[in-house]
């Protein structure tokens, strides 16, 4: 074993650092570092910068305009961009739909959609979950009925992240009620401008509306928007989920979170000393740091074991469970560190350039918001209970 990066990997890392120092706009990284709201155009700006360098399709092969990077390079990339406080790559087009189209899409679909994802012509959102179909995704009921050259779609999706920015949605729809529920599902691409599509915001605990309900009433979708054969959508869905879980460990986010936690705990005073010097608090910070050091290696071991260009298997469930717990622990410690100023809730102060000063230290509100918001980490992308179920079934064979 060799835990050090090779010369080539170090050169790669340095190249990334140079690029980030050069090209990541300071106004943008400052917003991310301070936990302020990001706008649609913030994300688009960052995508365009990465794309200009050929680095947006991180998991994509070269033939489709991707980086062709191996697992270690992707890991280094994640670490560097999060350390530099770059916005995250919006995953729905690049990391989710892209790989599905490459594997199951028609040539026409690949030619049309893949470049549009990289160029920022399309903002995709993910239409899987429904009010009645969360963990039990296969019970979904949004229906697509064939009518000549079109499907007519009726039903409702929910929890659609950033659906308010999207112009397209990829959906799992029911095209048959025969056989097992999984057998009657199709993977359909829908233009959100089509008459009958309605997006309604859902406000979360932090007061922000990052998710939506998406309603479909007699929405006519051309049949050529079907990906793969009719009633074979479950295969695409499962394939996509394994890709959704790449980078699921969130090591970069955890590192950035830990660094922020240490900054807060150094600034906060308790009993006349910085909180970070309080033995009880310091021990808790050390505990998550120790877990994170091992987690980084668990992550590398797992991604390295996955065959070249392939998504990791059931082991990714371990990364999801442990990685999200770790990030949530870091968020909880940061909230605790903030102390009494976790109470004020002046969300206008999250707007960059707001002329309203934060109440208390400027890190207080973002740290508190992140605690509430990141409760989602253990719920979405397959809840941690579902992941544990996968581990016990497929790895332990219980």
């Amino acid at each position, binding site marked *: 074993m060799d835990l050090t990066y090779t010369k080539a990997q170090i050169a790669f890392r340095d190249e990334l650092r140079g690029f980030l120092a050069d090209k990541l706009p300071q106004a943008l990284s400052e917003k991310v570092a301070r936990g302020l709201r990001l706008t649609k155009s913030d994300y688009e700006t960052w995508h365009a910068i990465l794309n200009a360098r050929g680095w947006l399709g991180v998991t994509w092969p070269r033939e489709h305009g991707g980086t062709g990077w191996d697992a270690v390079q992707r890991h280094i990339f994640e670490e560097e961009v999060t350390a530099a406080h770059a916005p995250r790559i919006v995953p729905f087009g690049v990391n989710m739909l892209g790989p599905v189209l490459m594997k199951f899409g028609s040539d026409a679909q690949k030619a049309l959609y893949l470049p549009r994802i990289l160029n920022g012509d399309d903002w995709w959102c993910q239409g899987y*979950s429904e009010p*009645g179909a*969360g*963990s*039990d995704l296969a*019970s979904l009921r949004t229906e697509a009925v064939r009518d000549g050259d079109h499907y007519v779609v009726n039903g409702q999706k*929910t*929890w659609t992240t950033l659906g308010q920015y999207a112009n397209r949605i990829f959906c799992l729809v029911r095209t048959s009620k025969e056989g097992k529920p999984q057998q009657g599902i199709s993977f359909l691409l829908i233009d959100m401008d089509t008459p009958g599509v309605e997006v309604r915001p*859902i*406000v*979360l*605990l932090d*007061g922000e509306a990052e*998710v939506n309900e998406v309603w479909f009433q007699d929405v006519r979708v051309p049949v050529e928007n079907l990906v793969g054969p009719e009633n074979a959508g479950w295969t695409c869905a499962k394939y996509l989920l394994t890709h959704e879980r790449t980078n699921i460990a969130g090591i970069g986010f955890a590192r950035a979170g830990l660094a922020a936690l240490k900054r807060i705990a150094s600034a*906060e*005073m*308790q*009993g*006349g000393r910085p909180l970070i010097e*309080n033995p*009880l*608090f310091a021990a*808790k910070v050390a505990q998550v740091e120790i877990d994170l050091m091992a987690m980084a290696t668990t992550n590398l071991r797992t991604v390295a074991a996955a065959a070249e260009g392939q998504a990791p298997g059931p082991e990714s469930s371990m990364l999801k469970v442990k990685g999200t717990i770790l990030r*949530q622990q870091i968020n*909880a410690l940061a*909230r*605790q560190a*903030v*102390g*009494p*100023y*976790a*109470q*004020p*809730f*002046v969300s206008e102060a999250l707007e960059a350039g707001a002329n309203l000063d934060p*109440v*208390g230290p400027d890190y207080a509100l973002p740290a*508190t918001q992140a*605690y*509430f918001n990141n*409760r*989602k980490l*253990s*719920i*979405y992308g397959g*809840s*941690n*209970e579902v992941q*544990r*179920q996968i581990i016990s079934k497929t790895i332990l064979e219980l």
Partner: protein
Amino acid sequence: MEFRLTEERRMLQDSLRRFLAESVTPARIAATTDDAAGHDPDLWRRLTDLGLPGAMVSEARGGFGGDGFDLMVVFEELGRAGLPTPLLDSAVLAGGLLAETGRDDLLARVIEGQVIAFAHAEPGSRYDLSRVATRAQRRADGWHVAGHKAVVHAAPAAEALIVSARTGGAVADEDGLSLFLVPRDAVTMRDYPLQGGGRAAEVHVDATLPADALLMPEGTALAAIERAQARATAAQCAEALGLMEAIKTLTVDYLRTRKQFGQPIGKFQALQHRMADVLIEIEQARSAVINLCGHMDAERPLRERHVSATKNLVGRAARLVVEESIQMHGGIGMTRDYALGHLAKRLTMVDHRFGDADFHLERFVALGAA
């Protein structure tokens, strides 16, 4: 030993629970954050008519309660309803201080429902009771008080404030703290909504006050502040208990009704066991609150050990209840408009006032060593 409530307290509990269940709506809770007062004036009037502020004050001082278990009964119900009110700040905290000063005239106003806030903590004090930088200087005809008080609950609704200030000693000294009665118009405020509902304010004092603004002998206020905060902590922990009970009811209901994979999710053993753990911790929290309320009038070392023990346990239980209930709800548990959202946030904020679980863990150790 006797763990049942007295007949009188049971009646108070019943009528309060019924009243709150009938009158508190999500819209009214949301209004407490938007309303300039930081609470619902109409509900507050009706709660005052029910005698709530008076139930926080002993008969000797013009009330009709004031025992630890009076606090417990009332605040558990307010917690269950998730309703922000000025009761804790005005009747328990400020009222507790006023009861020690012999200012029964002011206490009578509190019992009638007027709001008096206690402005003590400061930007740098975190949870240390003695860390006060606000200064008071004697002038020919009275006092000059100047300083910044942080996250003062109930301040937006207050007609007057009790402000702590140093008349002597260094910033963290135990001696040298004094209390002043300051009229609302003698301070400036920046008020704002709170994560847990209601409003608070940053209070800036730079005021010249008459000689009789001093509420108790100069330099001796810390012991009284500690006693008042012990009562406030008991009230807050009882409120947390009520919040936990309400969250438990919601979550158990959800486990029974939400179906995935063709059955109620409450049939999954993974969730059953975790809900069982939540129940166990809520019962522990109830016992801790009973312990504290039963020691309200004990000698300092014993009372304060119970303050820290209870605040530590309730802080830990609160986090477990919040995180598990959100998780077991799935996506719906993340939303602002489902009933869990407000309750979970309000319960989370308990750990950010009067000391968090770790602060009280260390304090418990220190009190034991002393």
